[in-house]
């Protein structure tokens, strides 16, 4: 069933991109939230965690309203660059990124908060700049916790369905990820295809979890 392998490849691509974007975004925002005190910080934290809690359909609708061709950003993109995001794999990446973001952000914030500020101050007294402190002290110390969050976010992005279906549709070979291919096969009553896709998905997810355990022995459980 070649279409199943195409769907698998697409799923890995979408989840990979989403995780890569969240690596940068999650660390930056997590670090900022851990270090800076400002009014409304708790509210912002709640807002950034919202995608994890909200129904995917609500997120999907927000996305349609924002990046759809009649949406605020979507209309601008269409007018100036002729770009239509809806029904593209990039839209699937955006949906997966937003859904999985809180997992990285939360882990990163907690990890940075556990870094001893005295170590950072010691580095500063030795004449290292702020960027140096971040990359040579804070990030290496927080890395274990962040990695745990990243692995979870990759797993979450792999399984994303609701928001993705709303913004990326179900175009075979283009936006049809494994979860959407399963849905479509069941809708059409094609049980053979559904069985194969479900088995493939289960194996993929198990493989991801197992390799996560390998990559970070003892870390996922400790900090997840």
């Amino acid at each position, binding site marked *: 069933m070649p279409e199943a392998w195409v769907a698998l490849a697409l799923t890995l691509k979408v989840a990979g991109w989403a995780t890569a974007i969240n690596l940068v975004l999650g660390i930056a925002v997590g670090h900022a939230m851990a270090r800076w005190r400002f009014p409304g910080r708790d509210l912002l934290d709640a807002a950034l965690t919202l995608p994890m809690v909200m129904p995917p359909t609500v997120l999907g609708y927000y996305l349609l309203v924002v990046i759809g*061709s009649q949406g605020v950003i979507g209309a601008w993109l269409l007018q100036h660059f002729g770009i*239509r995001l809806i*029904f593209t794999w990039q839209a699937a990446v955006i949906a997966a990124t937003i859904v999985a973001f809180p997992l990285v952000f939360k882990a990163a914030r907690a990890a940075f908060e556990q870094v001893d500020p005295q170590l950072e101050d010691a580095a500063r007294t030795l004449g290292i700049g702020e960027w140096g402190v971040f990359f040579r002290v804070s990030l290496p110390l927080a890395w274990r916790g962040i990695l745990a969050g990243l692995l979870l976010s990759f797993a979450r992005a792999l399984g994303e369905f609701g928001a993705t279906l709303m913004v990326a*549709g*179900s175009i075979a070979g283009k936006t049809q990820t494994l979860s959407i291919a399963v849905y*479509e096969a069941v809708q*059409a*009553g*094609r049980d053979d295809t559904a069985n194969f896709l479900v088995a493939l998905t289960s194996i993929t997810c198990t493989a991801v979890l197992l390799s996560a355990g390998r990559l970070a022995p003892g870390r996922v459980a400790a900090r997840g």
Partner: protein
Amino acid sequence: MHARLLRLLALAAACWLSPAARAGEVVVSAAASLTQALRDLVPLYEAAHPGDRVLLNFGASGALLAQIAKGAPADVFVSADQESMDQAQDRGLVRPAQRRDMVSNSLVVIVPAAATRAPRALADLAGPDFGRIAIGLPASVPVGRYTRGVLEAADLWRAIEPKMIGAHHVRQALDYVARGEVDAGFVYATDAAVLPGKVRVAFTVPTARPIRYPVAPLAAAPNAAEAVRFVDFLFTPGAQAVLVRHGFGKP
């Protein structure tokens, strides 16, 4: 303490396990294009048959059939094409004698209301002006089957399929056009009439076979008597008048 906990658990289990279908409850699995029309009909039926309650479940006819074949406790099935009902009949889910055509409909090509270009014929859709076209997924959505049928007959399916944005039911295709995410879409005339301010009909597409919606009570209906009663109601002059008001034709 343990006894109280056990009683609580037993109560919770009883709530979970209570039968889904209750007496007088008719579960109708109907084609998505009938959404508004059936919602208008339910109060009429319930007023005429006090004690009966109608629960509506909308979706693509093929998807509804897949649910029913898997044992969904539906009482009545209304399909937007003969093919889905044929499959139901072949699997013994409905009895041939109880199957009747309820309404007719027509296939149209729609464009967003604000669109500057509208196709005048099917062949126009193969041109570069129409990059994305919403079509129901032919595997499960009747409107997609009708569409593929006319496009294949016109020898245009191969040119248009790569532009196809598959919809899981006809109302999704309607929504894609209304939001301007696609340049055109294939829906029923009755769907286009639901969003007159957002979409406009470019032209009507003649189909090789007329579009007729068959309805039947399900052979395994949990509430068989109510199912037959509801199907009979759909053919009363009052019910047919409501369907006509929603743009459906006589069968």
